[in-house]
């Protein structure tokens, strides 16, 4: 191994209007290593990667690959230099198939025309080699977020790549998929290649990375050898304070009234007879593998998808035909797909935060803009959203801060029942803990929360009871106390229906 690093960036600065995203930042990737890049939301990680992959030009600084200076003129140029990137925000063409997305711009041709059969074959080969169970002919718009992430990964690995940049590739994945991904990363790393790996999940970083570079507020802080460092130290460098982990929720009082009762929820596509109760002040966790149907439960519940079954709110049977009805009954839903179902990307922070509650901020039918901005600014402060002003467009915020905006929207709306689907997707450790505390304080105020998460530690950290799903069915309900990740995993992989508990149901209390 030579002493010249595979990739080096030094003195890189980048300014967006009103935001100094990067200030004299350096980064060095050695041959054959996985370098983790960590930092709080808005620290500048994605910006640095976008500079390396030719999406943004840097204001200052030099980039070298194998010691040779380079300046990618665009993403294609970066690819040709051997740098490929899995961006935090997906860049997929939803109307095209998986295969067409993976090989966009590099379609196999025959006699001047595209050879679609070869395209599908190549894609199928690639997916098989990567052990990603996806049909290459499926349309991307039909995929779940996790599956879309898989497409992005396959695409990045389809190049002849020396430097692989992964910007929060596991944010949408659950443990099983993370395993698959890590195997891919290990297979990828050879003495001539290297990986830059961005994540907010410390356990992953400990497992996969060789060294860790820390950014804070757009500045380079330090680079550490992973084996010689503890998570605690890294977090302290990132956020400048200590964070407690390994907490579990306090056992809940027994006699709380049922706020929401779901009975026999089914959809044409996936769900089979899903039932559960939700009590006042309770956080109910939902665990399961990709495609287990947790998101679909949430969508069916709020009327975003058609379904059959009964829903009772505080004992009263309600009909929910669309999310507006749901909100009318005090049920809010925070989607896992913030870009598609969460944000108005072209509108400002204030409009996004206030979208669900706008009606409340009107006088005589007119919107009180002053009040709207004040409330939004309050939320920005409370959640520590990094933005120059509430008039910044949502599009220009970092991924984690965008997620906070979506959360803020529902906090302002103040629903009795809040269904949060992957609420901490892309949120840094420090902020994550703040959000946990926030959810707990909401519960303490008597709100009921359904929390869907692919991170089992997160589920165990917050939920008093945990519903586990597999293939659209509830395969078990566990109380937090005494339950391990392994137990949940076992329930989540009960394929084939009949096996398992005879009548899995999350319903508690007396029958109807």
């Amino acid at each position, binding site marked *: 191994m030579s002493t010249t690093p595979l990739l080096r960036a030094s003195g890189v600065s980048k300014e967006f209007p009103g935001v100094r995203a990067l200030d004299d930042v350096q980064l060095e990737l050695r041959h054959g290593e996985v370098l983790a890049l960590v930092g709080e939301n808005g620290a500048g990680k994605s910006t640095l990667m976008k500079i390396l992959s030719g999406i943004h030009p840097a204001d200052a600084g030099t980039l070298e690959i194998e010691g040779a200076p380079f300046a990618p003129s*665009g993403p294609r140029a970066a690819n040709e230099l051997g740098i490929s990137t899995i961006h935090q925000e997906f860049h997929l063409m939803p109307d095209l198939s998986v295969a067409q997305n993976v090989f966009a711009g590099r379609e196999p041709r025959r006699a001047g025309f595209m050879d679609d059969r070869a395209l599908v074959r190549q894609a199928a080969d690639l997916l098989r080699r990567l052990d990603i169970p996806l049909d290459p002919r499926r349309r991307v718009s039909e995929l779940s977020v996790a599956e879309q992430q898989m497409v992005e990964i396959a695409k990045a690995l389809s190049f002849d790549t020396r430097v692989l940049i992964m910007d929060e590739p596991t944010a949408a994945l659950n443990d099983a998929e993370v395993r698959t991904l890590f195997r891919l990363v290990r297979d990828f790393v050879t003495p001539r290649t290297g990986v830059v790996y961005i994540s907010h999940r410390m356990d992953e970083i400990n497992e996969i990375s060789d060294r860790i570079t820390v950014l804070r507020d757009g500045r380079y802080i330090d680079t550490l050898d992973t084996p010689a460092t503890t998570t605690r130290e890294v977090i302290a460098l990132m956020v400048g304070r200590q964070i407690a982990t390994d907490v579990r929720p306090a056992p809940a009082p027994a006699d709380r009234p049922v706020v929401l009762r779901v009975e026999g929820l089914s959809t044409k596509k996936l769900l089979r007879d899903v039932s559960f109760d939700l009590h006042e002040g309770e956080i109910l966790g939902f665990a399961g593998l990709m495609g287990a149907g947790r998101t679909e439960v949430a969508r069916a519940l709020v009327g975003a998808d058609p379904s059959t079954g009964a829903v009772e709110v505080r004992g009263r049977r309600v009909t929910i035909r669309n999310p507006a009805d749901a909100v009318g009954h005090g049920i809010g839903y925070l989607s896992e797909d913030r870009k*598609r179902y969460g944000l108005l*990307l*072209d509108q*400002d922070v204030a409009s996004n935060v206030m*979208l669900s509650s706008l009606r409340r901020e*009107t006088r005589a039918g007119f919107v009180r803009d002053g009040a709207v901005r004040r409330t939004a600014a309050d939320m920005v402060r409370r959640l520590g959203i990094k933005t120059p*002003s509430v*008039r910044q*467009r949502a599009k220009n915020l970092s991924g984690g801060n965008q997620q906070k905006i979506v959360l803020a929207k529902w906090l302002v709306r103040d629903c009795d029942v809040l269904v949060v689907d992957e609420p901490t997707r892309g949120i840094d450790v420090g902020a994550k803990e703040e959000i946990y505390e926030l959810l707990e304080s909401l519960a303490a105020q008597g709100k009921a929360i359904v929390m869907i998460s692919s991170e089992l530690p997160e589920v165990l950290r917050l939920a008093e009871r945990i519903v586990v799903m597999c293939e659209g069915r509830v395969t078990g309900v566990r109380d937090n106390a005494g339950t391990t990740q392994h137990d949940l995993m076992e329930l989540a992989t009960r394929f084939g229906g009949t096996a398992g508990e005879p009548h899995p149901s999350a319903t508690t209390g007396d029958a109807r």
Partner: protein
Amino acid sequence: MTSPTTPTTSTAGPAPATGTTRGPRYRQQLQQILAFAGLVVIFAFFSFASPFFLEWANIKGILLATAVTGIMALGATFVIATGGIDLSVGTGMTLCAVMTGVFLTNLGLPLAVGVLGGIATGALLGLLNGLNVSFLRIPPFIATLAMMMVAQGLSLIISGTKPIYFSDVAGFSQIALGELVPGLPNAVLIFFVAAVVAGVLLSKSLIGRYALSIGSNEEATAISGINVRRWKVAVYTLAGTFTGLAGVVMASRLNSAQPGLGLGYELEAIAAVVIGGTSLRGGRGTILGTVIGALIMSTLTNGLRIMSIPQEWQKVAVGVVILLAVYADILRRGKDA
């Protein structure tokens, strides 16, 4: 570093860059003032080119010529803000004029009732468009194209393919041509008042905010608990109401309902909206922009005519000037666009 191809900037959606920090609202204002500057340049040019251009009678003529299309364009702005389109405004306006004629002339109803009836006809057309788009999920282009044909057919059928005259309806022609404000025809006054109302509705009321939200991201708006279907129906109905008002104003100006008219007006209205900076993809739009867009169109036509430019050259000139005006606007907004 080398200059990037900035692939992130699509022509449609404004992307990150200079000026963004000051917030969209500030930028919007700047944008509008400068779009206004474009109009001023056109004005200045014609003032030099023709001594008659700046006479009040001519300015009045321009304003009057803007009124009908302008009123339609106000409504169209809301529809376009949602990412939809309304092709039925032209012939719809005619149907409203014809219905006003039926109410006032054939049925002899009182003036106010007839006028409200004409406007209500427009609202009804808009309601139907909205229901088709929202509940039957027919793409707006198709739904309103169909409505455009139906309205055209109905105008001819109801009127018996004959103009309906309002000569016997006392005061009807005063609606457009009377001068409540001395020197300013009421049609222009109605246009301005309607613009102010539309402006307030778009920027300050729920219907406008939700229209822009729907245009920005319909799915996210729905998941946020807004009844997107119902608000879309409301938006199309509102647009139809403006169409109805345009129909009444036109009928009043011509003192007759001409059933054969109207086709092609929808394109002018949409053009005014788009020149005014509202994106056909939805999510952004302003009423001031639309008013300026409509004024640019009619000022151009008037100026070229007053210069006695031959008709065929007028078309070329209008085309080129629109290109230039919009390009200048894009340049001004810089990388932001």
